[in-house]
């Protein structure tokens, strides 16, 4: 009995770690695609400056946090609460945050309801629309922006997933890009290049 419970806990911990790893790969993918994929760039261009996207599991203190700035998408290693505090006091970071935009329009949080829900998504067992239909996705912020971001995530997934999986879980209208290995090479380099030089290097 004790062994069985231990096994469940271990499996959950492992799944949580795998989800975290895949989310960071996804984050890296978004950062790269923001600079070289036209579709992703077009979606990000419509977002307000310094827009923050948070993706993770409900209740997790360390989700993936990305911020869209003029020079590209940056990963932020900060807790959500301190980030919210910063965004709700615009004058503190007035150089970076537009005062006209209320905090709620500059931030979007997409969370999976549980580790299992996140596991199903990151392992491509369900598509994002299926996850939404199963009530697995919680959204805080504007749903219109969530739709934009889901399209970006699907686009990035079309580079990341093997073709057979991509065809199964991604919308049929989404064309699977050619030369996807380029994206992987860029992903391996993106962390090493300074932000101001990244665009040229890519």
């Amino acid at each position, binding site marked *: 009995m004790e062994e069985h419970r231990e096994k469940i806990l271990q499996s959950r911990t492992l799944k949580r770690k795998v989800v975290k790893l895949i989310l960071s790969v996804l984050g890296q993918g978004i950062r790269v695609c923001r600079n070289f994929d036209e579709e992703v760039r077009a979606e990000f261009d419509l977002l307000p400056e310094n827009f923050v996207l948070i993706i993770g599991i409900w209740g997790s203190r360390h989700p993936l946090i990305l911020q869209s700035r003029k020079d590209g998408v940056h990963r932020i290693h900060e807790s959500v609460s301190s980030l919210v505090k910063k965004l709700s006091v615009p004058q503190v970071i007035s150089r970076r945050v537009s005062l006209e935009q209320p905090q709620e329009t500059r931030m979007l949080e997409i969370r999976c309801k549980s580790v299992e829900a996140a596991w199903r998504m990151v392992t491509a067992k369900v598509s994002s629309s299926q996850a939404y239909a199963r009530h697995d996705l919680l959204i805080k912020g504007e749903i*219109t*922006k*969530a*739709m934009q971001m889901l399209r970006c995530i699907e686009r990035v997934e079309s580079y990341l997933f093997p073709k057979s999986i991509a065809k199964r879980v991604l919308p049929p209208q989404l064309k699977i890009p050619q030369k996807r290995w380029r994206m992987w090479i860029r992903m391996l380099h993106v962390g090493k290049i300074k932000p101001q030089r990244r665009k040229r290097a890519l």
Partner: protein
Amino acid sequence: MMPEYFEFYNPVKIMCGEAALENIPYELTRLGAHKIFVLISRTMLNDGILERIGGLGKALIETDIPKDSSFAVVKKLAQKALAAECDGVLAVGGGSVLDTAKVVRALISQRKTNPRELLGNEWVQKSSRIIERIPFIMVPTTSGTGSECTSVAVVQDEQTHIKHEIISDQFLPDAAVLDPRCTEKLPPRLTASCGMDALCHAIEAYTGLQKNPLSDAYAVSAVKLIGKNLIAAVREPQSEEYRMSMACASTMAGASFSNSMVGLCHAIAHAMGAVCGVPHGEAVGMMLPKVMRWQLDAVKEEYGELLCAFCGVEYYAEIPYRQRGEKLIEAIEDTLNHLHQKCGIPVSFKDAGIGRKDLRQILAVTINDGASLTNPKPAGREDIWNILQSAL
């Protein structure tokens, strides 16, 4: 087919039929409300609905509710209710009044005034520990939105003019009151367009990605009632029976789509409303057969099943299995054309005053609407563009 997983939630007490309005004071007292914030449309106030309800004591009455409430309007109303220390909400009106009341109630139950803090889908607020239970009763005065049984509210951003959908269980009222006297002065055109809206809710709920056996039961019953009563309710508005049937159908369709979500037809209709100001029911009615035809291959079986509910078992039995889906679309087109001739609801973009120049903007708004995500057939920009072209 049984879904792998589904959720169904509908805790609303339905009070339906003759003299239902008069039970409201008892229900509010039972729920523990003392000072009621009444949001009511001016037409309904002038019709003496509140006098019929009676026994509301020193209620705070608000009639200044625009067609599409903005964040600013909702904020102002929440501040007003909090300042007056209201501990109950009663909403009497159409979709806009009910949606406004939903957000106001959610705000005052959390002692907040900023509606933007509620934006999202099924998000549990961190402050949920301090949520106060504010008794909430809704009285719909149109038979279409089904808002009294849905966990969705739409509020407009006054800066960007985008209509934001907010989804939360907190929006469901404690009770919904369906009284035939509330719809007796409804113009035929409004009865027709609201009926088409309810029909679309039921059909999209029956085919949506979140569909489940419980939502299906509500959807089929709603389609059955609409099939039998919509044209009759427009033809004979004085008939209580037809109006009650439509009110009931609208509520059931609302409960159904609140759990299984609407689809592309609603996404396009929301965009038509935002870009060209087309009334929601009319936009939905216009687009319904077009969207159905586009996705017939994906949901042929479901449409075939609904033919029985919409046209009756005898007609259904006469039609071969493979043709049933197509026949449902034809039956809906016939209904729409009949209503067009009877009371002038539009059947094409030309009738609604939408030109070719508006299509790009409608497409841009549609693609970002949450409703398009749960459509049974995934729709890309090109698909939506073709559907819009077909409506010109």
